[in-house]
């Protein structure tokens, strides 16, 4: 009955189709990206390459993963920094 009242008042936001679409969107982000661990590996290598231009990082402790919480998927990278490079400051300065 409550559902009926919701419908009558056009409360579309919590309709099951909205839930379905949202869940699908999230699961597909994972499906599409998470299919290959190789992709994350390549991404990791590229990240190391770029970040190494700016700072010294612990390559072996670097972690990259896709994290999904309630309603979003995030790329989470944990990159321990060993040292900053001095040269980069002088370049930008």
């Amino acid at each position, binding site marked *: 009955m409550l559902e009926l009242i919701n419908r009558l008042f056009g409360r579309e936001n919590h309709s099951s189709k909205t839930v*379905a679409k949202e*869940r699908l969107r999230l699961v597909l982000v994972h499906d599409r990206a998470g299919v290959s661990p190789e992709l994350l590996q390549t991404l990791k290598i590229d990240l190391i390459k770029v970040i190494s231009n700016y700072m010294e990082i612990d390559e072996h402790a670097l972690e990259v993963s896709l994290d999904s919480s309630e309603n979003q998927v995030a790329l989470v990278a944990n990159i321990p920094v060993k040292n900053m490079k001095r040269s980069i400051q002088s370049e930008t300065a």
Partner: protein
Amino acid sequence: MGEVIVITSGKGGVGKTTTSANLGAGLASFGDKVCLIDADIGLRNLDVVMGLENRIVYDLVDVTSGNCSFRKALIKDKRFENLFLLPAAQTKDKTAVNPDQMRALTEEIKNEFDYVIVDCPAGIEQGFRNAIAGANQAIVVTTPEVSAVRDADRIIGLLEKEDLREPKLVVNRMRYQMVKHGDMMSIDDIIDILAVDLLGVVPEDEQVVVSTNRGDMVVMNDSSKSGQAYRNIVRRIKGEDVPMMNLDDEGGFFRKLRQIIGLK
């Protein structure tokens, strides 16, 4: 030289075989010479959906293993003399055929037909790889449910990897009343998620079950909505620009009133 179209979905039970039969019969009714191939080895069903189950002598594996020519194995349809079926083998399994054999077979068949339609098995294993091997076009069938759409997405990815780019989507079993109430994903929602071209929408229709019970195809039923939907899809395959059917008026005022007061 004909076109080879594979009908696929990933998930089972969304209507691949029904779609194959109806598109085959529909194209044949427009005068095209059509060959349907049931690639679901071990679980053949296209024969029974088309009402041709009593005519099978040879099957797909007989042809690919060289027991007989494909012409000998083809079953002529009861209704259309330009519609043929190459049935799947029932006693073998999916590994009885390999993609190279399927490629060679479709290559041979398409020389003599306008359209070769391959009914793909569910799943993404060898049966799927066999079915898509010789295809130059793909139609992905889905229903407006999360599981079917998710699998369709996976299939689209795999098809693109195999260079079957721009697959077309058929959304089957659409229930407009539920869409209206916000209880089913709409066509726009599905297209938004999958980002592919829409080939057609087939409404949920009891007539599909009735026709299949008899071994007939609903595309031949002029008064059914699903039949109309399949005929539209056939015309789009043939390159015609047919607008999407408006099925929004399904139900009407009194039905809605009954629903509101709970008489459904």
